[in-house]
Each structure stands twice: as structure tokens, then as C-alpha cells.
């Protein structure tokens, strides 16, 4: 119930849309105060505000919304008076017993309620304000439920669609060039699900901004993630910040290096990841937004914005984000996280540093040996045709049809790795053109130099649609002293 006449009006201190907090006590120092509670999406509130603006009556508006939305309401209504923003949890509205908006309360200098009008009522409001609000219809119009009366489900629905303003995100620079979702306090809170927002995952290179969970959640919201994606985002950020990953080098290099997240285990399902047809995208929200969230953590919290501290000569579209789920169920082999020491039932993310994927079309090979050689030779020009060995872990994404051919002879992933490594070697004498390695420089002309130092540098996952003999390989980030990092995704925290 709204407060009855003569009851003390609760004090408040709310931020003005033009900056700085405003207290009721301060308003009353100048005489009686008229406080009008509104929401930004209530047509009656907008009507009332417009009529008050036309009459030039002095009211202080308290809008149950973040400041940006409150400002937009005022602009729509042509109201240039004082507007205070009251985002969730609406303590002031509750203290005033608000049920509907608009609710207009007159408060005497003594601090006592002098009168209240609920809804648009031209005559009653004119009397309360001591101003003529005119006789244009409608004479009366009921309003909407106050947000302070919403239950948790209504607030959650509100948070999901809340204060969207992509243009505001562009103005702030919180974007990778595509529209982002505004990280409202409600959305960030939903992402954090009660966890400590100030908990730190560590400094993010190159600018060394501290990755608090709240900032990581803000990046996840900006990227378009939903709360069910956040466990993967958090684990991936932790992995990315491991010293052995050397994110610093990747973030500032002139190379087109991005961060590639490979996801394994049960979390693929709740995160809605697509290991099947079109696994490298686009088209799936989980893949697209998780990868994008990582890149926004680097670009925003880490200050590694392309064109500023990120000095990549060309960049590449994978730097918008790259998150791949392995199709463990379709694969004939143990999944990547098991190869890297985690339990089969665990969920995990493996971070790699690399470029855009290179598609490998190979329809003729009928034996594992032929196919392994074809896959390997397709990768022989990665980084540079003459740069052997490449000196960095290289991710192959093997499509199901290729995996079947490779596994038909009883080959495991180690056999595939070994066959690729052994097939792709060239005499040093043929490699001394342009840019070449010390190993090539120091070898005899006929000495065979492999493309990879060791079969262990060849990382294999299975993903993709049932039809088609198209695998892919990601050119690695080179010369940066980085290693793949695998961390468990914990969904219970």
C-alpha cells in the first residue's frame, strides 16, 4: 500500500541521470517535494511525464530502471527535469509501498507525506502539483505494476531482455565491431549466480587488467553468453592466463593469432555446443559466444584491442572467437582431454593459439597412410612454406569420414600423429629460400627436416558433419613459447 498522508516519507539517496546522488533531505531543504515514481516502459508514465513537462511543473522523477533507460524515457517524454535512476532491487520503491506506476507523492518540508496520486488523473494531479495539467483527454488512465512488485521470475525475464542499447556499447568501445549485449548489473549477476564478483582469475595481458569474475562475466554478457556458458568461459580464461600459454605474446603480435578453445566432456550439452555439422561455425550460440567472450576479455579487460596494443598486421575472422567442441561420441579415439590426463567423465577446455582454419579437402585417399600424408602435406605451408620445423602445437580437426578411414586399419590417434609427422619431411637443401629455421640452415642438403619437431606437436580432435571428407588444420601461433593448456570445467562452483 502507498504511504498514507502524514506518514514519514522514507529518505533516499539515488543517482541522478546527470551525475551525483540526490537525497530526499536535500530536496526538502528547498520546500515541499513532489516525487513521481515511474518505470521506463509504462505508457501511462510517459503520458504523465509529457503532460507535466508541457505544464512546466517541478517534479523529481524516480525511474525504476538503470540510468540509461531512465534518460531515454525522459527524452521520449520531453521532460528535462530531475530524473533519478533506481535499478533493482528497488528498495526505495518498496519503502514507499509502491504498487503501481506512476505514483506521485507530495512530501511536506517536515518530511511527512502530504498527498498521493496513483496513475494518471489530470484533476487530482493538478491539485497535488498546484499546476494546471490541462484538459486534454484522457482525464484518467491507470498505470502499470511497479517493478518493485515483480517476483523473481518476472525480474529474471526482465534481466534477459533489459536495457538493450547496442549503440551505447559502441560509444563505450565495448565491442569487437559487432553489436554486443549491454552488461547490466542484472545480467552480470545472473551470470555470476551468487559467486564473489571480486574473486580474481589474475591479470590479463597485455595491459594486465585484473580479471575479476565480475569483469569476466561482463565480457560474457557482452559476447552474448547465457549463464549456462559461463563455467566454460571461466575455465577457458583461467587456462588462457596460465604462464605457459604466454597470452602476452599472442595478444600483441603482428601474427594473426587468436585463442582457440576446444571443449570436451558433458558440459558440451548444457552449454549447447555443436560438435557436428558446421562445428567450426557459424550458427551455434554456445560456440560463437564462448569464443567471443574470451576474445573480449583479452581486448577489454586485457586492453589488447586490435589496432591498439594488438598489433596484428591483418587479423583474421577467428579472432572474433573460436570455440570448438570435440565429437567424442562419433570419434573412434579417446577425446583430447583424456589424452591430456583428465578423466573421461570430466568436462574440460583446452586452449591453443592459432590462426584461421585451413580446410583440407581429400576425397581420394583410401588407406590411413594415404590420408595421413594428404592431411600432413596440406599443413606443410603453414606459417611459411620454408619454415621447418614449425615449432608449435598444431590442431587438426578430423571430420568423421576421414576419422573412419584412419581408424579402419586399427589406427589410434598416436598412429595418425606418427604417420603425419613421418610423411611430411623435406630435404634441407629445398628449404633454404626466404625465411628458414636454424635447423634448416645447419643441416646437410639431403638431410630430411620434418614439419613438426615431434609427433606430439600434432593435436587431433574429431568434429564435423557425417557427410563430406573435409578436415581442417589451424596454423599455430609461431615462435611464442606457448603450450596448449587443458583445465577442467567445474560446473558446481
Amino acid at each position, binding site marked *: 500500500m502507498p504511504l498514507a498522508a502524514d506518514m514519514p516519507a522514507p529518505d533516499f539517496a539515488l543517482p541522478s541521470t546527470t551525475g551525483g546522488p540526490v537525497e530526499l533531505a536535500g530536496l526538502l531543504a528547498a520546500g515541499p517535494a513532489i516525487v513521481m515514481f515511474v518505470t521506463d516502459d509504462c505508457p501511462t508514465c510517459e503520458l504523465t511525464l509529457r503532460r507535466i513537462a508541457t505544464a512546466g511543473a517541478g517534479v523529481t522523477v524516480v525511474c525504476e530502471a538503470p540510468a540509461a533507460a531512465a534518460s531515454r524515457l525522459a527524452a521520449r517524454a520531453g521532460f528535462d527535469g530531475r530524473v533519478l535512476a533506481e535499478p533493482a532491487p528497488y528498495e526505495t520503491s518498496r519503502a514507499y509501498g509502491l504498487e503501481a506506476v506512476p505514483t506521485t507523492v507530495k512530501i511536506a518540508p517536515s518530511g511527512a507525506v502530504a498527498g498521493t496520486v496513483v496513475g494518471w488523473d489530470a484533476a487530482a494531479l493538478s491539485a497535488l502539483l498546484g499546476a494546471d495539467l490541462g484538459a486534454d483527454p484522457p482525464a484518467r488512465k491507470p498505470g502499470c505494476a511497479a517493478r518493485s512488485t515483480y517476483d523473481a521470475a518476472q525480474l529474471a525475464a526482465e534481466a534477459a531482455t533489459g536495457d538493450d542499447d547496442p549503440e551505447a556499447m559502441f560509444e563505450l568501445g565495448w565491442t569487437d565491431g559487432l553489436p554486443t549485449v549491454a552488461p547490466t548489473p542484472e545480467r552480470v549477476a545472473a551470470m555470476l549466480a551468487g559467486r564473489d564478483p571480486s574473486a580474481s582469475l589474475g591479470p590479463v595481458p597485455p595491459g594486465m587488467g*585484473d580479471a575479476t569474475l565480475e569483469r569476466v562475466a561482463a565480457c560474457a554478457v557482452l559476447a552474448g553468453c547465457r549463464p549456462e556458458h559461463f563455467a566454460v568461459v571461466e575455465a577457458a580464461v583461467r587456462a588462457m592466463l596460465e604462464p605457459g600459454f604466454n597470452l602476452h605474446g599472442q595478444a600483441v603480435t603482428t601474427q594473426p593469432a587468436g585463442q582457440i578453445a576446444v571443449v570436451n566432456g558433458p558440459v558440451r550439452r548444457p552449454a549447447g555446443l555443436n560438435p557436428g555439422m558446421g562445428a567450426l561455425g557459424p550458427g551455434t550460440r554456445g560456440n560463437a559466444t564462448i569464443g567471443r567472450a574470451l576474445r573480449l576479455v583479452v581486448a577489454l579487460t586485457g586492453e589488447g584491442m586490435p589496432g591498439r596494443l594488438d598489433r596484428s598486421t591483418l587479423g583474421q575472422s577467428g579472432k572474433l572467437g573460436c570455440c570448438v567442441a570435440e565429437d567424442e561420441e562419433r570419434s573412434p579415439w579417446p577425446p583430447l582431454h583424456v589424452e591430456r590426463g583428465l578423466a573421461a567423465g570430466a568436462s574440460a577446455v583446452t586452449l591453443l593459439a592459432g590462426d584461421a582454419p585451413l580446410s583440407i579437402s581429400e576425397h581420394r585417399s583410401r588407406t590411413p597412410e594415404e590420408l595421413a600424408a594428404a592431411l600432413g602435406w596440406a599443413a606443410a605451408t603453414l606459417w611459411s612454406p620454408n619454415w621447418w620445423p614449425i615449432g608449435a602445437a598444431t590442431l587438426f580437426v578430423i571430420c568423421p569420414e576421414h576419422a573412419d578411414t584412419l581408424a579402419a586399419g586399427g589406427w589410434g590417434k598416436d598412429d595418425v600423429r606418427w604417420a603425419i609427422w613421418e610423411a611430411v619431411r623435406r630435404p634441407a637443401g629445398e628449404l633454404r629460400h626466404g625465411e628458414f629455421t636454424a635447423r634448416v640452415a645447419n643441416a646437410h642438403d639431403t638431410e630430411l627436416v620434418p614439419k613438426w619437431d615431434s609427433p606430439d606437436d600434432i593435436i587431433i580432435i574429431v568434429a564435423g558433419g557425417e557427410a563430406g571428407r573435409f578436415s581442417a588444420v589451424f596454423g599455430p601461433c609461431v615462435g611464442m613459447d606457448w603450450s596448449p593448456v587443458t583445465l577442467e570445467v567445474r560446473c558446481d562452483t
Partner: protein
Amino acid sequence: MRYVSPYDPAARTPVAAAPRPETLAGRTVALLDISKNRGAEFLDRIERHLRERGAEVERCRKPLFSRPAGGELVERIAARADLAVEGLAD
């Protein structure tokens, strides 16, 4: 703030550059080789020019170009040199 910022304000505080010295004579200049290809050749030439202008030169090197210089190296440069030049990129 109407939104939750992804930024860390501490990482966004600009650090003012040290004032430019009037002269190089008698000053010590640290030349940091970041271990990029042929960076040392560039710094050799810079060293010659600096010495011609009366500066002392302190050569130093970080082990890998893609990782930031460690605290000890930065402290050594700060303690021994008045100015620093970094030989960046290939």
C-alpha cells in the same frame, strides 16, 4: 556506472613519460635487445650514434621477445640508466 565495466581502471591509468633530457652527454642509455632477429644490429648502430654524442651505453637483453621483460631486468635498467631504447621487431 549504468553498466558493469569489463575494464580494470588501474590498467587504464596513463603513465606519464619521463621528461626529455636537454643533452645526452654524460647520460647512460640502456639499449634493450628483445631477442628479435637482427635487433642487435640495429642497436649496434644506435650505440655508435649515442657514443658520438657523449652518452654512455648499457646493453641488455631479454631472453624471449614475446614475454615481458622480467622485474630484475627492468630494475637493473632503472638503476643504471637515465634513458632506454628498445629494439623492437625484426
